[in-house]
């Protein structure tokens, strides 16, 4: 059984049919790419999967259960973490605090115990802080733990978003344009980090991305959408030469023509 399965999902905003009958399956442990020209509906798909929007039709099966229309917090609890296209970190909080926010499942102490600072509360708080530092280590952010998140350089902010998502102990990680604004050196590092997330942490990763150097190198399966509809799915090699994909991107960069790192 695949970890995530979309069955003919539709999302309509008033007059705009943003997602039309999209279906795909993502196997456990896959690194799955979702690409398409601007406005194709990729981020909308992410928003539908994570519960920000409710689809008009279709099912979204996560680990066999339909999560379509559930609230985002509930879906996150079930093990779906995401990052955002526009980086939505908590700018005035420190790096460590950003990660700790996502640790609800580690922090069972009640509000009353927080107000009274009971021993149970202190224990939970320490466990939370410890786990947060571990994740920051993994993403190479440990030194910045007490810095204000908003003052971090762009690339570090992106990594912080990932660390924060990892705090949920997710099975599935959705990355929305993680390579935006990166140069080729940083993009190479990102590829390694994505592989690390899958190989060492056992995550399944879905990637929305425009940077073809990243997509073609790190994704195993690529699903292409245009104007809300699926136009192709296959391995990077297949997608590179797929006529429909080339046609959709005509006028923009053609997939596969960037020099591989």
């Amino acid at each position, binding site marked *: 059984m695949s970890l995530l399965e979309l069955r003919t999902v539709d999302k309509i*905003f*008033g007059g705009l049919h943003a997602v039309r009958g999209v279906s795909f399956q993502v196997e456990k442990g896959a690194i799955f790419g979702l690409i398409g020209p601007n406005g194709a509906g990729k981020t909308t798909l992410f928003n539908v999967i994570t519960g920000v*929007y409710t689809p008009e039709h279709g099912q979204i099966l996560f680990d066999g259960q339909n999560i379509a229309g559930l609230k985002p917090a509930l879906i996150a609890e079930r093990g779906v973490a995401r990052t*955002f296209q526009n980086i939505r970190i908590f700018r005035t909080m420190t790096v460590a605090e950003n990660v700790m926010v996502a640790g609800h499942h580690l922090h069972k102490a009640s509000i009353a115990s927080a107000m009274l600072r009971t021993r149970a509360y202190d224990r939970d708080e320490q466990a939370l802080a410890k786990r947060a530092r571990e994740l920051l280590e993994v993403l190479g952010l440990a030194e910045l733990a007490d810095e204000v998140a908003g003052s971090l350089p762009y690339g570090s902010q992106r990594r912080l978003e990932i660390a924060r998502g990892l705090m949920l102990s997710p099975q599935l990680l959705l990355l929305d344009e993680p390579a935006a604004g990166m140069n080729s050196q940083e993009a190479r590092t990102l590829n390694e980090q994505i592989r690390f997330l899958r190989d060492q942490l056992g995550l399944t990763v879905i990637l929305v991305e425009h940077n073809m150097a990243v997509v073609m190198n790190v994704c195993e399966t690529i699903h292409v959408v245009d104007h809300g509809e699926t136009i192709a799915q296959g391995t990077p090699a297949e997608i590179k030469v797929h006529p429909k994909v080339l046609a959709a991107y005509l006028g923009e960069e053609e997939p596969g023509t960037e020099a591989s790192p």
Partner: protein
Amino acid sequence: MTQFLQQIINGLSLGSIYALIALGYTMVYGILKLINFAHGEVFMVGAYTGFYAAGALGVASFEAQNQGFPWYLALLVLIIAMAAAALLGVTIEFLAYRPVRSAPRLTPLITAIGVSLFLQNAGMLLFSPNPQRYPAILSEVRFELFGVIVTNIKLTIFAVALCLMLGLHLFVQKTWTGRAMRALSFNIDAAKLMGIDTNQVIRSTFAIGSGLAAAGGILFGLDQITINPLMGVLTGLKAFVAAVLGGIGSIPGAVVGGLLIGLAEQLTAGYLSPEYRDAITFVILILILLLKPEGLLGIVRVEKV
């Protein structure tokens, strides 16, 4: 039945006044996404300007001689009040709102509340906190229609309100500024990029909205006989609820909302109890925000994530 019709007439005339004020709220919110808390005070200033202008034009002597105030002078009073209010509105925008236009939403909200409080209390200092009797800019003539008492004042309210609303409608549909106002309410950034002078359009919006509120103020004075510096607080709030009820940002919505609130208030006072005439507005506010926050004629906006 006649009592019911009476309440309807009264409710619609009150509602017309609310509608005139609500238009100002809705237009400003549509463009700036700002609740202009001070708008109720502009209404109040309009009423007082009419009061003083009529006095200056000798309304007292006409009253003493039991003659009607000449219609052309009444019209002059209206124009003066509307112009004064327009000037006030534009000044408020320039001094208090423009500096905080790009600040997080909280800041302009508090600024608006501050301006409102300032004008209320300044009004009490300048105009005397005691209620004043409104001059007979229009002398009352009553007549009966199907057992219902209608005064020329009520008819004037309908007429003036209707004219002004029609005028606004034509303005918004046919003139360049009106079209620009609509463009800004859809997407202010795009409008700026299209080369529209947004500051100019915003100024016009405030000016027009304030002028309409002033007209409402004079009509209110004629209808309710007394005015006081705090009259803008409750009436302004009711007009705001009217704008929300109709769909904030929607001009027809403000009209519909105003009439409905006027009717609801009058019917509540007549059939339930006068104690609750003010409360009904708050109840409507809460109901509409909980059940249909975009209002009766408003559109649901989806936030881009």
